[in-house]
């Protein structure tokens, strides 16, 4: 299915967010996730099913003021 990952369309095979992150190459990285503007905790990724067209945000630490 296709999801909008950080603003760009991506084709993924996995259904759950955890599987999708693995497939997309995020692995064990420290990131925070949201689906359709709702925060998804790391502990909830394995039971969060994605649907066609979902907007997935994957954010990492960065410099800030």
């Amino acid at each position, binding site marked *: 299915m296709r999801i909008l990952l950080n603003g760009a369309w991506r084709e993924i095979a996995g259904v759950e967010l955890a599987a999708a992150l693995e497939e997309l190459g*995020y692995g064990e990285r*420290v990131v925070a996730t949201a689906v359709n503007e709702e*925060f998804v*905790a790391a502990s909830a990724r394995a039971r969060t099913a994605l649907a066609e067209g979902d907007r997935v945000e*994957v954010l990492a*630490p*960065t*410099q*800030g*003021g």
Partner: protein
Amino acid sequence: MLHIYQASLNSRLLLGTARFPSPAVLSQAVRAARAEVVTVSLRRESSGERSGQGFWGLIRELGVLVLPNTAGCHTVKEAVTTAHMAREVFGTSWIKLEVIGEDDTLQPDVFGLTEAARILCQEGFEVFPYTTEDLVVADRLLAAGCGVLMPWGAPIGSGRGLNNLFGLRALRAHFPGVPLIVDAGLGVPSHAAQALELGFDAVLINTAIAQARDPVQMAAAFAQAVEAGLAARLAGPIEPRDLAEPSTPVLGTAFRG
């Protein structure tokens, strides 16, 4: 000692981590500033990038407290979701809450800010709201549960110093027991000293240090300025007068009478 939520801070200088020429200079500047709190943020990262992981490793090595921000958020929903994401990644309930209302000045949307603050305080966050010097907004933020306020000095990155002295003095006078941190718009150490002299508890500096020709030296200069400003505040500055008052004793002046 400055008490904010459960933290006790010796340093009155909080440092932003953006816009430094290199990670090494950032590390040196944090030490030169004697900062105990640094601000951080979250951004999209593609699976091919590793910069976020490296940055987070660098910050952890510094052994400072982190204050994540919601920079770039324009709505309550964006800010609240970003706060949740930051809490998980950075492992802190602190959040520097920014809800931007206007892009030219990066002026806070104080309506969205107070609403987001209410939601986040209820959810157990310790909110540092980036706000204006407006007293009514300040009241609302405190009623929402904020234990600290961060009024702007001037628009973010402008380096103009304390734009509205009257408003900032009124804010300080109106909320004597509330920790107040001037955030944004300071350009040179004298601005920071002035904020502390006026009774503000601390300042948050980023661009003025990061974009200086020598950020490490500027960080040290700001550290000295906040120490001087605080010492002056505690020493009790004199009141300004309109007319001169001789400092040398007048009694016994030669050639008079």
